[in-house]
């Protein structure tokens, strides 16, 4: 199973998902992220899914869950770089990722977290 790396940049945790997500790796990511949030006290999480081409309802739900977990640590989650096809799939599945913010790319996501957007 591939692990998704988590990088800390300033007060933000940066997660770039470069692999096709399997259910296991998403669960692992959730755990890793919770650990990192506790360890670093980060105030924001950026999840870059620009390389993700396939999503299902489980992964959609996990993204929402990551948002909820981060909020417990008083960190805000921004999902960035979603592909149009992925957005359409999630909408058709009836998942609107409530409680998670979205941005077109990582730069705009960072600006959103820093309150400059």
């Amino acid at each position, binding site marked *: 199973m591939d692990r998704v790396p988590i990088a800390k940049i300033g007060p933000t945790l940066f997660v770039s998902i470069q692999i096709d997500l399997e259910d296991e790796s998403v669960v692992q990511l959730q755990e890793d992220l919770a650990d990192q949030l506790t360890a670093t006290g980060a105030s924001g999480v950026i999840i870059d899914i620009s390389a993700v081409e396939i999503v299902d309802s489980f992964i959609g739900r996990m993204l929402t869950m990551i948002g909820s977990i981060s909020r417990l640590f008083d960190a805000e989650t921004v999902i960035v770089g979603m592909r149009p096809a992925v*957005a359409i799939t999630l909408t058709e599945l009836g998942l*609107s990722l409530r409680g998670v913010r979205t941005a*077109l790319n990582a730069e705009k996501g960072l600006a959103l977290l820093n309150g400059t957007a």
Partner: protein
Amino acid sequence: MDAYGGQGRMAVYLRDHHDKIVGRWAELVLAVVGGRLSLDEIRHELDDLYALLLRVMTQQDEHAMGELRATLDELSRSRARAGFTPSQTALGVFSVKDAVYELVADTADLVHEYLAFTRMVDDLGLRTFESYSAAREQIIADQSAAMMELSTPVVRLWEGVLAVPLVGTLDSARTQLVMEKLLETLVATGSEQAVIDITGVPTVDTEVAQHLLKTVNAARLLGAQCTICGIRPQVAQTIVSLGIEFGDIATKATLADALALALSNAGLKVVPA
């Protein structure tokens, strides 16, 4: 192929009178198509057909029937594209019977073979009908695809502000296309604001509203904000009486208002020069 056999003597007869029959056939076809094709053009087409017909009748080779059908299909397709009517197309084949009959009428011993010949021509005529309508359907499908492409433009109003002027009825297929195009353009141009103008949408029912909501939600997932504008008074009444909720999606009366909102969302301000 056996169905058309037993026309050996007929075939010999037809070959002997090649020029006469093709000439008469071409005249008959010319009368039907009404001056849209020249006699030479028609003769040229019929020469090919006639040669293939003879090959089928003499059963020289097994490819003849396939070639004849292919030639007929091609002929019907080009007729359909050129805007000829189905009768004009089919009569182009059927009139060979008249041309042949005029010659055979006096020759009593060929009548039996002539019947087999007409059966064959009838089959071929029906085939032109079929390929004609297939070609027509293809044309209609192409046109609706072209219209679909034309009717879903995504335009850039400002740096970071896109607009989708929707005209015509919104069905699932169109919404899908609009959604894909809008989302792709949002990503490609890095725009965070989109204005969906529904001035040209004649009716908004629950299904159309559902489609609009889906589009807005998908755009939101990308990190873009949508404003819906151009809701006409009657449409507004329908929406309210149907109990459709647009939720927290911004709606504005006119495109101008929506643009102003999009600009202010993008952190821009319009001031008098």
